């Protein structure tokens, strides 16, 4: 009796803690999102107003009408494609590094060293490179760049997750007659599903929120949402409602995707959970 009461108390406490954490972390998001519904006077009201007087979607309508919202589509395409490619190539490479120790430390270290290069420094030479290839202001250009940008992250993260998986299953599968390729696809990847999704989410996020390269390597055709938002910060103007509305538009798609994907994450969690 006492144990089950204690257990329920623990669950209640944990839920309360979870709620509190969520409120704390979400408060700034709430503040940001609410601005998209506030009038200019409400945004700069004193004392600060915690909720708008009415929920109006005019700003959103303007963003769609003016074509600003289309930049979110650009970002989706670019971040999405580069994530898929990076996850695919990167996970393959990670498996090779994890199980076969390909290239030993040198290769692994060279790979991670790519992430040690400050973007500011290489933005201009990459711009020159892209001018040469004609990739400036193209989708392909940014997709390629973000793929390269994220490969080190994917490789190292997936290597970690794959190392976590006991080899016994793979060895058993090999003995059973599966080819290494089949072992990778049918045994390893499903087992590292949680890691795959966790990695994919952030690979997408890194590409999604990237600014410097998107700024320099695009002009008018492929404006991404991160660059578009900065258009609303002016020296003599500050279109907070648009900044906020664009942020909502820019956050919602990933949020929905994450919402779907984390179901797999949670399932993965349940498999490793201690007590029910």
């Amino acid at each position, binding site marked *: 009796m006492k144990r089950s009461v204690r257990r329920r108390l623990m669950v209640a406490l944990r839920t309360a803690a979870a709620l509190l954490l969520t409120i704390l972390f979400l408060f700034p998001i709430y503040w940001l999102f609410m601005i998209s519904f506030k009038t*200019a006077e409400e945004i700069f009201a004193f004392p600060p107003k915690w909720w708008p007087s009415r929920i109006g979607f005019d700003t959103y309508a303007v963003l769609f009408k003016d074509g600003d919202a289309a930049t979110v589509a650009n970002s989706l395409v670019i971040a999405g494609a580069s994530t898929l490619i990076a996850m695919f190539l990167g996970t393959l490479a990670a498996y090779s590094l994890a199980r076969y120790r390909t290239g030993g430390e040198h290769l692994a270290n060279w790979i991670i060293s790519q992430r040690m290069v400050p973007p500011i420094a290489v933005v*201009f030479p990459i711009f020159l490179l892209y001018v040469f290839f004609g990739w400036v202001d193209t989708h392909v250009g940014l997709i390629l760049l973000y793929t390269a940008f994220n490969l080190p992250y994917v490789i190292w993260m997936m290597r970690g997750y794959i190392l976590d998986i006991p080899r016994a299953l793979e060895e058993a599968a090999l003995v059973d007659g599966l080819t290494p390729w089949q072992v990778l696809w049918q045994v390893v990847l499903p087992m590292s599903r949680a890691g795959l999704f966790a990695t994919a989410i952030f690979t997408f996020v890194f590409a999604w929120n990237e600014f410097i390269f998107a700024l320099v390597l695009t002009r008018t055709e492929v404006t991404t949402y991160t660059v578009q938002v900065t258009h609303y910060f*002016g020296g003599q103007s500050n279109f907070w409602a648009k900044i906020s509305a664009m942020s909502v538009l820019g956050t919602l798609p990933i949020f929905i995707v994450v919402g779907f994907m984390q179901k797999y994450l949670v399932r993965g969690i349940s498999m490793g959970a201690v007590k029910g």
Partner: protein
Amino acid sequence: MVQASHGRMAAAFRRALLPALAIVSMAFSGTALAQSAAQRAADAAKKICAGKTITIVWEAGLQSLDPLNFSGPKWEQLTGCKVKVVEVPTAEMFTKIMQEYRAGTGAYDALNVIPAWMPDLVQAGALENLESYVDKYGYRAELKTIAPTYRDNQMTVNGKIYGFPDDGDVFLFYYRKDLFARPDLQKAFKAKFNYDLAPPKTWKQFDDIGSFLTEALKAEGIYGGSFFREPPYTMFMFQERFRVEGGKFFDAGTMKATVNSAVGVKVLTEMRNENRFMPPGVEKFGFVENLAVFLDGKSAMTISWPPYGRFAAGYLSEEKALAWVPKSKIAGKVGYALPPGGHPELAAGFALSVASTSKQKEAAYLFIQWLNSEEISLQRVQLPYALRDPFRDSHYTDKDYMAKWPDAKEYLAALGEGAKTGLLDLSLIQTDKYEEAIRQGISKLWAGEDPKKILDEVAKQWDEITQRVGLDKQKAVYNAWAAKGGAYPK
């Protein structure tokens, strides 16, 4: 007899010929003179760029609505030349222009540049010399009618034309004339300070009035004044105040920085003291925060760019593009004047230029001549959503503009005054580095550091920069700048 009549007829013919020729030639040149620069540009453009696209770099956001919604489509209608607008956030404009130039892409044809950048851009070779085009298309006359301060200070580098001033940015003084007119306040002020309550002519008066009003209007929650105290904006205000109080940036002979003179220390100290009667947290105010406080009626005096005047009057506030501007509670209550000292800073501003790596220089030039012309610029500065401010003599006296809101006449008059007495932004090689030093100094000031210490550090940094650039090189540029009418107050 016949010969004689021939001769008489010939003579008569000759007598008639000259006047006839004169009349005919006058008629022709009269047509040429009557044709405006705008028209000339449009006609020429029709011939060379119909169907082609020129690219122009413009400040992102509100400013871009001009070429996107008005001038771009109109130009295409008139000439068949298409205009592609590359919107770039202000903070990155210089970078993108230089990068595209350095990479030799030729991606940009026409440019918007801030005049203070022009020496650097010209030195780097990024801007096209416009002298020959100006002569070819007869634009000298209309260049002359740009308001003197902009014309004489924001157009040339080393005496050659590299850009057309296109934006009458100037710091104007805005005040609540209704508060200044209140008899109770006037009486109390006169009693305390022994002079009439009126727009301050000196900074001492500003301090007097500001502290007085904050105290007197405490119950109403109104402060005597507020400014945009964020470092980038205060940097401009410091430049103005420092010079108005008699300061010189450099010693003209040795090129040593003298920004840390007693004048500089005085200015910084006074600025910090003023914050005491301003809204708490004013140190963080940017353009929009300060605007919000002013339009809410909570500050009696402020200094800012011309848009404040239009926004305060509620001019076309229903315009969608201006939805970010808080509704003005003070329409009709705002007075306009020159800031204390009478020499407002021509802070930032914009000029239209042609990129030296453009593959369509002529077409780009024609577009900017058209944009900048009397006829078109008058329309552009009246666009409800644009941030371009009046910059031609004719703008300040335009009947339509004067009718836009009850006090528009005074507004334009004040702007016109400012354009006569305005002070030019410091403009050297690597200007941004010098400005950066001041910006950092301002941030230290708000953090509580000692003004003298701050300015000594600024002066030290300035001297280092000058050394890096090359003392003699910079001295020449500085002296050329200092020789301009708007460099130091007369």
